[in-house]
Each structure stands twice: as structure tokens, then as C-alpha cells.
């Protein structure tokens, strides 16, 4: 924490968790998709489900998906502007389970070329966010650092292959979590880095045999 976490952020009101946090969740979700979504189905849980319309949360979520920062003065008009830009979106109150945070969201996003992703996350207070699931894989992404999401075949050496490429490109790993669905099945790495990962490095990672897909998500402010 630093003084600009206290005197800041600059944001559109009224609420750090319901407006600024929601916007950042949208930004991170669109970042995971890799592009501005053409279509967004947004399932809201708990307190978010009850309050989203009045607290501006719906506008903030869409603003984030549009790629806007939490202090963008267009946020109050986000629904209108997103509609004009051709984004198809819907809000569905739902139940994301008893363990889900009261301010939880599930995004089902579709890109221009049919590229899709499912992102679950929560606005955990003070504008902070936590993405807890990407395409069904548990993750812990705060959006504070650039991050790589690398699903792959669970076999020996994959972590070493990935980390070697990053090391060669002078990209420092700040944190890494590895999960797997089952031994020998699909696994995933979530790697937070100190530096953004350039497209050619993402491409090199994608070329590795056991690697399924690579998503790079830059930090959200």
C-alpha cells in the first residue's frame, strides 16, 4: 500500500466496490478475452445482483468491457454508448454458489471472431478485484501485475519449458500458481510477471507442444 492507494484512485462515483471495482473487473475480463467483446452475458451474484442497476455497477462493468478506465467520464452513459458501438450485452441475476463473494460476477464473453471466454471474479472492496476463475480453471488474479494464463497438458517439464522462455526474454516471474484437473489431464499455470509479455513471447509459448492456449492480460490500473 502506498499514499496513492489512500489519496486515490481518481474514479467515477459513487462506490469503490460497486463502481471502480466493477469497472476494473470488466477491464480484466476483456483483457482475458484479448479484445473488446462483441457479446457479453453478465451473471451477477449476491449484493451485486440486488444493487447493480442503481449503484451504477451495470454501467461500470460495461465501461470496463469497453476498455475504459475507472475515472472515464463516459461511465454514466456506458450502456447507451456500448449499445451504439454494437456491443450486445445482458445482465442476469444468478447464484454463483455459497462460497462466492457478495460482489461476484460471471462474464461469458464472445469476441469479434467467435473467440470466447468465461471469467469469474469479485469486487472485494476499496476498488480491489480478484478474478477467481478463467474458463473453469481456478485462478487468483488481482490485475495489479501483467499476467499469463497458460492451460497445458499435465506432463513433466512444461513448467520448465515455459519459465525458460520467460527467462530468456528477461521477464521476471512475480508469482506462479499451477493447478490441474487431474493427473495427466489439463493443467494451467497462472503467472504474474514484473514486465508485460510481448506478443512474440506469447507466440513462442503457444508453440510449445503441451501448451493449449496462452492468454496475456496486462495489468489494469
Amino acid at each position, binding site marked *: 500500500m502506498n*499514499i*496513492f492507494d489512500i*489519496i486515490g484512485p481518481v474514479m467515477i462515483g459513487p462506490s469503490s466496490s460497486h463502481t471502480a471495482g466493477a469497472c476494473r473487473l470488466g477491464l480484466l475480463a476483456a483483457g482475458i478475452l484479448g479484445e473488446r467483446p462483441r457479446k457479453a452475458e453478465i451473471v451477477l451474484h449476491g449484493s451485486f445482483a440486488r444493487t447493480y442497476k*442503481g449503484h451504477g455497477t451495470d454501467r461500470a462493468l460495461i465501461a470496463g468491457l469497453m476498455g475504459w478506465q475507472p475515472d472515464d467520464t463516459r461511465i454514466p452513459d456506458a450502456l447507451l454508448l456500448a449499445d451504439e458501438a454494437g456491443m450486445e450485452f445482458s445482465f442476469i441475476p444468478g447464484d454463483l454458489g455459497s462460497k462466492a463473494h457478495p460482489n461476484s460476477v460471471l462474464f461469458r464473453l464472445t469476441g469479434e471472431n467467435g473467440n470466447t471466454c468465461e471469467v469469474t471474479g469479485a469486487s472485494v*472492496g476499496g476498488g480491489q478485484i480478484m478474478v477467481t476463475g478463467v474458463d473453469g480453471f481456478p485462478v487468483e488474479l488481482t490485475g495489479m501485475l501483467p499476467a499469463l494464463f497458460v492451460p497445458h497438458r499435465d506432463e513433466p517439464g512444461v513448467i520448465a519449458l515455459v519459465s525458460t522462455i520467460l527467462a530468456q526474454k528477461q521477464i521476471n516471474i512475480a508469482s506462479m500458481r499451477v493447478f490441474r484437473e487431474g493427473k495427466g489431464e489439463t493443467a494451467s499455470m497462472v503467472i504474474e510477471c514484473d514486465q508485460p509479455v510481448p506478443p512474440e513471447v506469447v507466440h513462442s509459448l503457444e508453440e510449445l507442444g503441451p501448451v493449449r492456449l496462452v492468454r496475456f492480460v496486462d495489468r489494469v490500473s
Partner: protein
Amino acid sequence: MKQDKLAWAKLAGEAEEKNLPLIEYLLERSAAQLETDKASILARMDDALQVMEEAVTFGMTGVKSNSGLTGGSAKALNEYIKATVNKERQDLLGPVAGSAVMYALAAAEANAAMGRIVAAPTAGASGILPGVLLSMREHCNIPREKLTESLVVAGVIGEVIASRASIAGATGGCQAECGSAAAMAAGAVVYMLGGSSKQIGDAVSIVFKNMLGLVCDPVAGLVEVPCIKRNAGSVVQCLLAAELSLAGVGSFIPADEAIDAMDKVGRSLPQGLRETAEGGLAVTPTARAWAEKYFKRIHG
């Protein structure tokens, strides 16, 4: 990784050990932490100050929130003071507190109306620092540079509070949001007027003495009622604390201990009084009736 608890007494002591004026030490510390220089820190605080000014200006025009529940009090107060009070009697709050209240209301109403604000430390309390700072500039001729330096002091006080307690209503109630903002602003005022590190700490402490136990009970869960008026009340607490401290009255309980007390009190507040809209004013008949109509309206 959990951060070590900060302490105001320790920070003040470190500045003294290094033979540095407090502000220089605090700037140095932040610059090192953020891998930047002092000038950049001050420039960024100046940007924040500018957003605060714009929020106040926006609010003073009489903005209304989307819900329609709030808006226009800053403007109404301003017009009343000009038209009635100045002609017939002394204003009850005096010039400094009077303006601080008005500007705090304006910025808080701007927040409720989805205006652009600085969360300081949170959006719910975003009227307090602007209210106080803009009033100090207007009535006490504080130069802009001093204001931005005072924001650094306020920021560090907030860091101490966040590390020992909380700045979130959901965790500690309104004492943690508006209370913290008022404590930060009180420290800022004492700094601006040349008070010592100890006096800054005393002002922080006195704010909490008067705001301990303040609950978070927002009507319909919105950041409007009673939040906007609590921003106004908080600036008065801030100025009270600053004046007492500068007068040398001091605080029996030191700042860090008062912050710890706020933490414990916050944890003992029932969930219903911690931003869940399930207690206090949020469950009064008037609030319930309004909320019921409001939710029906927005869900169509």
C-alpha cells in the same frame, strides 16, 4: 504477504532521527517506495487536488443522484448563507467550517451523481478532504504547494490507519471511512498551520475520540443517505480536532492507540451496521418504504 503495521509515532521518530522535517521524510519514504522522486509525488497530489476542485465545482451546481434521493444541499446551503445569514445573523459555523461543510457536501453529492472524484481514502468519504482543503485555501490563504504537501501527510496517516485498522465501511463502519478521512484531514490542517508531528498525531486521535462507534447504515445500500451529511459532520470534527491540537490541548490517548481502538470497535460492530443496509437508519420505516419503491422502480 502481510505488511508490517505502521505507526505514526515511529514515522515521526524516524524523521527526527534523520534530522529531517517531517514532510521531507515522508516524501523521501514514499518516493523510495514508489521508485520515483519527490517532485513526481507532489505533482501527482496536485493532480488529485485538481480533481477534488472539479468535484466541488460540479457538486455546487446542484447535481442530483440517479436515484433522486440526494443532491442540491451544497447549493441550497450556499444560497441560504448568502441571502439570509449574512444579512441577519452570524453564520452558525463560522467562515472556515461553514465553507468546509458546503464544499464537502458538494463533493459528496458529486460522488453520488456519478461525478469524477478522488477516493480519499474511499468514495464514500470523498467530500471530506476537498471540503477542508478548499476552505483552508479560501479562508486561511494556504498556498497550493502547502496543500499538496498536506495531502502527502494525509496520505501517510491513511496508510497508518489502513495498516492498523481499516478504511472500509464494510469492515469498520463509518468510523473507518469518514472517521479516517477526518483524521487524515485534521493531520493535514495541523501540518498546513505549522503544527508538530506530535500535534498531527493528537489531531488524529481527537477525531477518533469523537467518531468512535459511528456505524455504516446506508439507505438502500446507496452512498447517499446518510453518507453525504456524514461528510459534512466529519469536516467539523476535523477542524475541531485540529484547533484543539494546535492550541496545545493535546490528546491523552496517542494516535496509534486510538487507531487500534477504532479497529477493535469496528470489529465489534454487528454486520448489520457495517454497510449491509440492515441496521440503523437503513431500516427505519421511511428508509424501508423508499427502498422498496426504489428497487421496484429499477428492476422494472
